[in-house]
């Protein structure tokens, strides 16, 4: 089956099995280094990607669902200015996710920031999709709030 989609800004036409999970497509067909997890739906939460701006678990997305969608993986996201905001928030709060969940957590935070959801409940709900407990809930809230503030200031300067 031929599937057209945009992955990390590149328009691609892929020839795939229609039920192949997105996590395997990214790891095997695109050789995306930022996705190494495929838990077969065990909800490890490490395979998060942004699909049309929303955070999704790529191991639960079959190939046919990505047709015409824009996918952003951490590899593509890490080069953006938005990624720098979250990076600065990590430095500012002296809190940093572990290496195994770094990519997924950063994309989840981005999803929260882009949807303007920074309340305690929203953050806790969003982070529940990640099984890694390297950071306490309170710590993640601090990071999100710091990143939100950095982004707001950046936007204010630009305008």
């Amino acid at each position, binding site marked *: 089956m031929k599937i057209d989609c945009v992955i990390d800004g590149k328009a691609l036409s892929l020839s795939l*099995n229609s039920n192949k999970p997105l996590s*395997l497509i990214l*790891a*095997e067909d695109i*050789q995306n*280094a930022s996705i*190494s*997890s*495929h*838990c077969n739906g*065990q909800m*490890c939460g*490490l395979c998060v990607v942004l699909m049309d701006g929303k955070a999704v678990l790529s191991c639960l997305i079959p190939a046919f669902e990505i047709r015409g969608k824009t996918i952003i993986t951490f590899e593509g996201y890490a080069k953006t200015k938005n990624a720098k905001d979250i990076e600065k928030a990590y430095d500012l709060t*002296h*809190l*940093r996710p*572990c*290496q*195994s969940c*770094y990519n997924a957590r950063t994309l989840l935070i981005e999803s929260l920031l882009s949807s303007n959801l920074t309340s305690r409940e929203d953050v*806790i709900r969003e982070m529940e999709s990640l*099984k890694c*407990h*390297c*950071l*306490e*809930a*309170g*710590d993640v809230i601090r990071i999100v709030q710091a990143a939100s503030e950095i982004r707001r200031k950046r936007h204010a300067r630009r305008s």
Partner: protein
Amino acid sequence: MADKTNVPRLNMRYGLIYTSSEVGRKIKEIKIPELNQKYFILRAESLQGENLLEFAGSQMPVMAKDAVMYEEEPIVAVIAPDYESAAIARREIAIETGEEEISEEASLYQEDYGWGNIEDFRLGWKETIKREKPAESVIKEEEKEEKAAEADEEKSGEGEEKEDTEKEEVAAEEEKTEEEEEVIIHEYKKVSTTFSLDPIKYTSFTFFSATCWSEGSSLHVMVPTQYPKLVADTVARVTGFDRRKIIIHTSQYSETSDEYLFYPAIIASITASASLSMKCPVEIKTRAINRRGAIKTKRITYLNNDLRPIAEEVVHTLDIGAYQMLEREVERHAMTGIIPSYPLQAFKASIKIEKSFNFPSFIYSSMGYSEALAATEYHSSVLAKEIGMSPYEFRLWALKDKRKFTDYLPATQMGDIKRLLTDIAMKSSFSRKWSSNDLGRSNPSLLGYTKGIGIAAGTGIAGFSTSFVTEHEYQAKLTYTQRGAIVVDTSAYSRGTAVNFWKKILKEELELPSEDSVLFSNNDHSTIDSGPKILSRFICSFSKQLQTNARKLKSLKETEKLPIAITFDVENRFFPCEFDESAYAAMAIEVMLPETSFSPKVKEVWAEYSVGLIADSAILTSSIKQLILRTLIECGMEIDSSLRINISFVRRDAEGIASVVSVTKAIVISSLSSALEQAIGKRVTLPISAEDILHLRRKGDEN
């Protein structure tokens, strides 16, 4: 940082590993489906070199040849044009094994250590009592009088002399009975515990891949590894390729329990062998695995009349998995943790290392020290309860100012630990909570939950033992280049804050313009073997060794022409004990057990550390938090957003970087065990689940 290497994808072949769950059986036949020339099947027989992984004198096969010894043991590698084809081909493979299980010796290795004579305490203490006229002797006297009267009647005709002598004998016997001392043997009060940890098998959610390709005369291997030198050595041994022409590229990884230590070396050597056979780049994908075997500690403490512990005997049993690897070193680590900190007149410990048909499990974030220390600390808490004290009060009462000097640990000052314990007890209101929880457990239905609080403290160790270091050479190379830069040659995957410390030391000692002049070369031709994080005592002692050798290099620079190089031992070979203490820590954990779900929840954690140099307390706090959370999850705890972890540090006069990993793991396990025991009222085995707690509760109700 991971290497930035462009892997040639052209003509790349992809592979998967075939394993079998029929462990402990001989392989009769491996049925391989008919495949075209695009596929390649690799078995132990097709390896070009030796089918062997070797580390510090210990050996295990890379691929199963005659028998399947553990479930994850690679039997066949299937190489195909893509992963999907490889998966389909792997599905067709079948293995036929013998019906009889290979016999295993129950105990393979045993080591004893101790002081004093434990037999004296097993038998009990003797008390000598002088009895004036016990009831039995009065009856005997009456009998004697009767006998004497009878004798008088019978012997009335005999001479007076005889009569006199008989009377004297009776009188002497009477005197004897009056002086008789009775020896009563009193048994010492005994407190015995059994501390058990169930096995943990860790399989990472993330895949890792080993990629091999040839470029000119060299063989490139790209794999995530904590030990690049081991990968290079194993690839050379398995493929028979020239060791000097193997280039290792380390890809990014995140190790949670040292799963990237030995397993990547096995997968990389299989990949390299397939790549050389097929003459094209090969990538094999799998998941990282590690396992901690079952641990059981049986301990008996003998108490004197004041209820002070005076003697102790311990049997510590460890399951090491399918292959005996570093069993002597594992024993040393476990023995260091088993020796208690309180003074004892006699002590006897036996470490038993057993084999099983499981993944080799000699390193799982620790080599047995953490679990052994957890067992010791847990026993202290049980002892306290038996004596009628809180665990905190008991530790202050039982610990002396200095610990006994043993072959394993020096006579460390216990004052630091006592201070940490007091701080933690104050912060967590330990004594109040301990007594109120005990009261609350008697009537849980009133509150709808039960709570428990546990406390533990200990000394951290890191690295290989002194005996191990003397047996195996671990060296580093320091080079002063012509351009004025310093190159430290190391096989250690040098990352993290420790490297910044070493750069700082070298900059100061050699008066360099900036820390950028110090380069850490972590290539495969290096001369240092650091091993995993938990074993790297070089984190502690390397800074001292580096400082001394930097001074030597500075003096050499005055007389010699650049470049100059010094090779030196990474660790101190002449240390009088097996390990040196690197940090002290104390921790209290509060748990809550809802009466409806029985799902154990951690409410709050308090931890305090006494350490030497701290590079960045924020980063250290963050890494300790991660370690605490990971250990709690490993123990089956439920973590929710209300959990609070309070960590603080106390600086002490010590040079070098402290390693807090081993002690943190130990005190988390031990304080959690005592907290759960208080909440449930029964001995627990970690990891624990809601079902286990329900089972324990029901058992209690039946009784």
